[in-house]
């Protein structure tokens, strides 16, 4: 309540200051910008009052931020250059005008750069602002005022300069000129900073920064045309520049008002959020809802996992926060429930963030838990896939070892026996020959058995030549006819080929009559269909385990003639 009283009081002061200034300017239009026409008078009041009004309103809404007071101060400072008017009649007012006539630009720049939180973005901003304040308040204000005597400089009807220490007209002129040069520099630097900030800002903030930058460029221009004179005159060009500044300042105020309107719209969107959430959106739907409400189509909503803190999306997939985007944590009981990555400045309104968090609390918690479960499932699936792959790799290794090791040895051994037999036969020692021949036969049988065993462990043709070759080879050795409808000639990742092959091989193992096999590449998946008479004997669980490890699916479809189609869908990059 007290805040309101103060605000109303200051506002009244602002109205009075404005009217007073206009009066002074009208009394002697030759000394200022505002007195020459109704339009310039209106510009004076519009810019000053807009800043004061917006500043106070901002302060009431967000008292912790320095932005409101800065803007209101800038509004008052806007009036002060007009007070350098002999017609003002009051020595203190005249002196104030003298000392603070360049106070407005640094204040506006400060406010705009610190909008809306009240804090500056970087040390560079703070440094340039310090220079601007020094230049505007000291070099162009208080310092020359100490040595500037208006009467001595030819202004007979001017009120006394209360700050005057000693009249050093030359020094004052040098100070003013130096201040102009410096002013050109800092005003341009500040406008540049505003433009840099603008490129990364959210939309409502952008318009405020743009208007502020425009104002500062116009200020720089005013300094530029006055460099030689050392003071800002009220020639036609200067008048136009001043009018432009007024328009830019009104635009600053309008930008702020627009951001309030947006915030209000966002608030009503929060109400809509509550309604939409009542219909419980699907996983990932919350992001859509929030993105619509805050007006950022690329909004990213991530959930930190309880145990690791790793961020995942609503489906439990790991996400990385995009670089260069601002992040805001939605907190609950001091813990982050969700993290939003958004355009910078979009969620500066703490109240809005709080409202969203509390409105979406249940939905957020729900989606977070879902994400957590999904992430766990994914971990589980991945570990299952690793186990299956490790098993396959082990079998493949075993097959290779048997072929390259044991079988090779046996072949070598039979070769040695064969050589031995030749030698014995040549040496005429024929008694051992029959035994030797028997041993050779045994050895050959062992070799064949070993080959079949190795092949049963893992078909090398699958790894070497792919699914089509492996299924064709299976058809050569199976106990039942295998009718092949279609097989994809392309290669897939080893785990997918192995899983697809296992489905067919398993069906062939238990089959008692003809199998019909069709494997087809469909978008994003390899689909294997095996039609069999013996679907009931199938070890469904084992196959499901293998397919599940790859996020695949097993479906058994019973046809009218009592046959079963085993359909395995294996997701893969197509």
């Amino acid at each position, binding site marked *: 309540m007290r805040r309101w009283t103060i605000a109303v009081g200051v506002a009244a002061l602002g109205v009075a200051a404005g009217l007073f200034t206009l009066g002074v300017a009208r009394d002697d239009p030759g000394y200022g910008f505002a007195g020459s026409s109704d339009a310039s008078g209106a510009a004076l009041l519009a810019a000053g009052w807009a800043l004061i009004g917006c500043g106070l309103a901002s302060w009431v809404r967000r008292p912790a931020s320095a932005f409101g007071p800065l803007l209101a101060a800038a509004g008052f400072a806007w009036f002060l250059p007009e007070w350098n008017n002999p017609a003002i009649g009051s020595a203190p007012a005249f002196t104030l005008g003298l000392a603070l006539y360049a106070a407005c630009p640094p204040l506006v720049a400060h406010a705009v750069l610190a909008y809306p939180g009240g804090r500056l973005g970087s040390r560079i901003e703070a440094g340039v602002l310090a220079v601007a304040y020094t230049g505007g308040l000291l070099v162009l204000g208080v310092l020359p005022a100490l040595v500037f005597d208006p009467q001595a400089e030819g202004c007979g009807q001017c009120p006394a300069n209360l700050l005057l220490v000693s009249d050093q007209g030359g020094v004052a002129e040098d100070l003013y000129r130096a201040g102009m040069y410096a002013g050109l520099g800092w005003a341009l630097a500040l406008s540049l900073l505003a433009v840099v900030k603008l490129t990364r800002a959210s939309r409502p903030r952008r318009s405020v920064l743009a208007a502020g930058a425009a104002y500062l460029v116009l200020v720089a221009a005013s300094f530029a045309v006055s460099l030689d004179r050392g003071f800002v005159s009220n020639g036609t060009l200067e008048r136009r520049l001043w009018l432009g500044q007024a328009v830019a300042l009104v635009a600053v105020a309008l930008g702020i008002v627009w951001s309030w309107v947006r915030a209000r719209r966002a608030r009503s969107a929060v109400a809509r959020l509550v309604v939409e959430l009542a219909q419980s959106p699907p996983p990932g739907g919350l992001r859509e809802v929030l993105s619509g409400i805050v007006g950022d189509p690329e909004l990213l909503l991530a959930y930190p996992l309880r145990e690791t803190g790793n961020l995942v999306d609503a489906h439990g997939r790991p996400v990385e926060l995009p670089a260069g985007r601002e992040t805001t944590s939605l907190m609950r009981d001091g813990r982050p429930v969700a993290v939003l990555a958004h355009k910078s400045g979009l969620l500066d309104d703490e109240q809005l963030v709080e409202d969203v968090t509390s409105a979406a609390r249940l939905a957020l918690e729900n989606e977070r838990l879902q994400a957590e479960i999904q992430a766990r499932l994914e971990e589980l699936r991945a570990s299952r896939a690793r186990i299956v792959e490790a098993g396959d790799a082990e079998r493949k290794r075993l097959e290779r070892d048997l*072929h*390259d090791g044991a079988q090779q040895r046996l072949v070598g051994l039979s070769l040695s026996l064969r050589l031995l037999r*030749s030698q014995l036969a040549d040496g005429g020692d024929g008694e051992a020959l029959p035994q030797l021949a028997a041993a050779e036969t045994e050895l050959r049988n062992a070799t064949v058995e070993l080959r079949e065993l190795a092949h049963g462990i893992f078909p090398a043709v699958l790894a*070497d030549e792919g699914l089509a*070759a492996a299924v*064709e080879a299976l058809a050569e050795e199976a106990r039942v*006819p295998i009718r092949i409808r279609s097989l994809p000639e392309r290669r897939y990742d080893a785990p997918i080929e192995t899983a697809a092959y296992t489905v067919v091989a398993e069906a062939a193992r238990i089959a008692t009559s003809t199998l019909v096999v069709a494997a087809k590449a469909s978008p994003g998946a390899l689909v294997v269909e095996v039609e069999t008479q013996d679907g009931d004997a199938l070890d469904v669980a084992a196959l499901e385990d293998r397919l599940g490890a790859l996020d695949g699916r097993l479906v058994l479809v019973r046809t009218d003639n009592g046959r079963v189609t085993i359909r395995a869908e294996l997701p893969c990059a197509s």
Partner: protein
Amino acid sequence: MRVVIADDETLLREGLARLLADAGLDVVGKAGTAEELMRRVELTRPDVAIVDIRMPPTHTDEGLVAAQEIRRSHPSVGVLVLSHYVESRYAMRLLEEHPERSGYLLKERVSDLAVLVDALERIADGECVLDPTIVSRLVRRPREESPLDELTEREREVLALIAEGHSNDGICKQLFLSPKTVETHVRHILLKLGIGETHEYHRRVLAVLAYLRG
């Protein structure tokens, strides 16, 4: 006959070389890798190169690839691939491209000197050779309703010999039949299977194999 032997297993390579030398063949080169094999073939221009299918570095099908390369670049040099793989697909890779002067035997045949030498001689004569075990797998594989069922036992024997790459003369010798009888069998078989009459020997082998694999 001049042969080159390529196998990365020293024991096997040397043993086989001795066995073949004892049988009166001229072993003009030995190699442990596919590259060395290509060099030996280039230098010695043998009648037949005997190549193990598994060779360094990956021990999968380097030997087969090298054999194909030899057939491509040296048409006068025959190849005999020795393999652990009983699947017909590997053999077909070799035979489909260059059926003449190509052979594919299972590795355990190395100790069966008669089979080995016979295969080498047939290859040197320009025939193609396919291991009987692989062929019998193809002939015996389970099928739905098939014209193969209508073949007589003798016809099936002849069919298998055709698939193994034997010429009519070879079949005569194997089965102790007269050339006329064999010709009659062959004509009947091709008719029953619906394979167009073809007198060209290699085309006949490939057509029969394609039929058996299909």
